[in-house]
């Protein structure tokens, strides 16, 4: 608007100039930014975007957000509690390499059932994950397919599942269920005991895709579950009708942008200034997926040693 045109406020935090109080002029300015910067600004974490849009009065009226599922929220709240103190400060434990964790739920799925083809319960599903929110400065440390099992299912004995993954290319013939054009065979075996969440480490599978800036990951996930020990005769029927909710995709990332917290910097800084209090009894979270399995006592003893 004429009122605000002459007055451009330069935002020191992100070094970008935004005209206040006027979305249209903001979009206009955005279009003038170099393409790379425009993308960066659009992906500026929402918290900082709000802070940098100083004149943006009606933030609430922004387009409605898609709401994640309750399971995903529950899992991330649990991760938050493991990674940060009550005051919201990141816990200072050394093996805690990531400073960003993103959880994506599939934005489309295509179910195929081949019950009569194979022994056990086969869940073959095509999943499409849109990873647009991952920025160029967020580097992948680990990626996990996150399955949650219904606790109502009687898991008296272990369930052994095989998971086959393959990448799909989108071909024009079918919008929703593309055919399999090339596949990277990737199979894992995991046991489901009492645990509600099962994490399938697919880092080696996804690393090359994400490294080439692929943001639409289309994969076929084929899970076959057998009750009990696969070596012995397994009773297949009763636990078979277990509902498998399509997995979410969890990415542990290291954000190298200025706004992100760089643990190593502060640890180095603290080593220089020993007066900073050190946290002694923080649980250790192993970003490589060994959550909960490590004996924290052992760790502490070894550290003291």
């Amino acid at each position, binding site marked *: 608007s004429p009122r605000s045109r002459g007055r451009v406020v330069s935002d020191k935090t992100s070094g970008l100039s935004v005209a206040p109080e006027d979305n249209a002029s903001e979009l206009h300015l955005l279009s003038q930014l170099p393409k790379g910067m425009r993308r960066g600004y659009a992906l500026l*974490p*929402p*918290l*900082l975007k*709000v802070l940098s849009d100083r004149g943006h009065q009606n*933030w*609430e009226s*922004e*387009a409605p*957000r*898609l*709401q*994640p599922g309750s399971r*995903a*929220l529950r899992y*991330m*709240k649990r*991760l*938050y509690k493991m*990674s*940060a103190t*009550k*005051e*919201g*400060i*990141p816990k200072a434990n050394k093996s805690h390499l990531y*400073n*960003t*964790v*993103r*959880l*994506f*739920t599939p*934005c489309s799925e295509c179910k195929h059932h081949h019950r009569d083809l194979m022994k056990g319960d086969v869940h073959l599903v095509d999943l499409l994950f*849109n990873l*647009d*929110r991952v920025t160029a400065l967020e580097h992948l440390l680990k990626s996990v397919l996150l399955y949650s099992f219904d606790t109502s299912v009687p898991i008296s004995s272990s369930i052994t599942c095989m998971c086959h993954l393959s990448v799909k290319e989108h071909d024009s013939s079918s919008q929703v269920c593309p055919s399999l054009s090339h596949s990277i065979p990737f199979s894992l075996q995991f046991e489901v005991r009492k645990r509600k969440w099962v994490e399938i480490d697919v880092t080696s599978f996804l690393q090359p895709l994400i490294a080439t800036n692929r943001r639409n990951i289309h994969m076929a996930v084929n899970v076959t579950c057998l009750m009990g020990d696969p070596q012995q005769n397994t009773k297949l029927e009763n636990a078979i009708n277990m509902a498998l909710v399509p997995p979410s995709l969890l990415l542990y990332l290291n*954000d190298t942008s*200025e*706004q*992100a*917290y*760089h*643990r190593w910097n*502060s640890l180095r800084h603290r080593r220089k200034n020993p007066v900073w209090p050190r946290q002694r009894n923080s649980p250790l979270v192993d970003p490589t997926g060994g959550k909960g399995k490590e004996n924290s006592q052992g760790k502490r003893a070894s550290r003291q040693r």
Partner: protein
Amino acid sequence: RAENLKEAPATPSHNLSKYFNQFLFPQNECELHNFRLSFSQLKWDKWIIAPHRYSPQYCKGDCPRVVGHRYGSPVHTMVQNIIYEKLDSSVPKPSCVPAEYSPLSVLTIEPDGSIVYKEYEDMIATKCTCR
């Protein structure tokens, strides 16, 4: 110790100790002040899942003329004070600003419905200085 002194129970020698205190620890000097907000006050709690409350704190107070090691201020701070007093009063006096911060972990819902846990640098002031 300063805190303890401030909150010492009233004793007959209270007035005397209070009198001496004002020389030892001048009032209204630059220090860290508590400030706590909840994201629901800002109506951000629709997309900020955790933490519910955030204590950014802030620095406020006068900067003494001779800023000694107490604030860890660089020598320039004293020079700026001298410029203000002796040469050009349009040059501002040193200000009371944060000197150190601690990070904050935030769990948010992204516009596309994905969930992100991110650790942000320098979100909570933990120390003040004059400069």
